[in-house]
């Protein structure tokens, strides 16, 4: 598949632009790991219709990953392919937030994780559309439509499960409570972030925080759920310090590339 943004990629990047490269990986790894998690569910959803919907989300995310990584290969300019970047890094080199690697404990966790990420993701992409980097803003323009739908889909489901039966309310609340600890990290800045913000390329995520919690709270209230009060958060993903789950995700994601190195598929 051709990268639709091929024409926007400047050939002049070298690895000296390491900040940009790391910045892109930070964005793309979130979609990669979340897409992988959603892909695990294909064929195992609560109904055929929801199964198809969740697979669509996974497909959107992997499409985004490919756009970002194809851009990253140009910036790296060292002959690595999108698959090398996606599948041949070490554990500590993956920069996704801890939230997206949390497991599909049950459908409430799957949708809770999606919802807590989607609201952030949408706000982030709306800002990235204004990036002075034309490739990134073009990717954001495409992704923002996909993610608007994801946010709508997951918000609707939070309301259904929150304001459904007693059992579903309990399960949904438990999932939100557990996943809450991973929300704060979304708004942490890395060094690459700061450098990219300074250049007008990156998004200042610290500015998205208040609105994020406001929007999340609105949906949770409508879903008759409690907004968790806990002030204890987990972090580390952006520095490559992950939960124990990531190793297993990578074991599957990387299996073929590791077991059969240097081959075409």
């Amino acid at each position, binding site marked *: 598949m051709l990268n639709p943004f091929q024409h926007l990629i400047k050939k002049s990047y070298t690895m000296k632009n390491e900040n940009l490269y790391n910045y892109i990986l930070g964005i793309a790894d979130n979609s990669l790991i979340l897409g992988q998690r959603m892909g695990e569910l294909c064929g195992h959803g609560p*109904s*055929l*219709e*929801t199964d*198809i*919907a969740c697979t*669509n989300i996974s497909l959107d995310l992997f499409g985004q990953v490919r756009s970002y990584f194809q851009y990253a290969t140009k910036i790296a300019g060292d002959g690595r392919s999108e698959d090398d970047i996606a599948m041949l890094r070490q554990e500590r080199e993956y920069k996704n937030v801890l939230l997206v690697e949390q497991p599909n404990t049950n459908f409430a966790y799957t949708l809770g994780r999606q919802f807590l990420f989607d609201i952030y993701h949408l706000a982030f992409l709306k800002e990235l559309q204004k990036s002075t980097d034309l490739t990134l803003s073009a990717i954001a323009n495409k992704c923002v439509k996909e993610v608007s*739908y994801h946010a*709508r*889909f997951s918000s*609707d489901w939070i309301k*259904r499960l929150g304001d459904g039966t007693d059992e579903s309310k309990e399960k949904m609340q438990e999932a939100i409570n557990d996943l809450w600890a991973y929300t704060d990290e979304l708004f942490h800045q890395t060094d690459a972030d700061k450098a990219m913000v300074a250049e007008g390329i990156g998004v200042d995520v610290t500015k998205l925080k208040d609105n994020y919690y406001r929007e999340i709270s609105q949906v949770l209230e409508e879903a008759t759920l409690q907004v968790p009060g806990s002030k204890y958060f987990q972090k580390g993903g952006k520095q490559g310090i992950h939960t124990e789950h990531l190793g297993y995700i990578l074991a599957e994601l990387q299996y073929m590339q590791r077991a059969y190195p240097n081959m075409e598929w």
Partner: protein
Amino acid sequence: MSTKNWPLWEIFVRSKNGLEHRHCGSLHAADSEMALENARDVYTRRNEGVSIWVVESKHITASNPEHNGELFEPAQDKVYRHPTFYDLPDDVKHM
């Protein structure tokens, strides 16, 4: 065992502006919002649509094929409703 199953919905998709919505199939959903979202995910995966209608199947009233004789056959001999019923000379153009 579930107490109640998701009802069936009929899905109509407009493939592009200027064309009518066409029935393309059905699916299950708990409510109309979910039916719309499911229809989008199930029936427009390959760019098939620009607009969707969903109707819960139970709200559709269908004619009974046993009455087809009285409903539809009387129209068969009303040939004067068709332009070819009228004889005009070949010289008449644009009519």
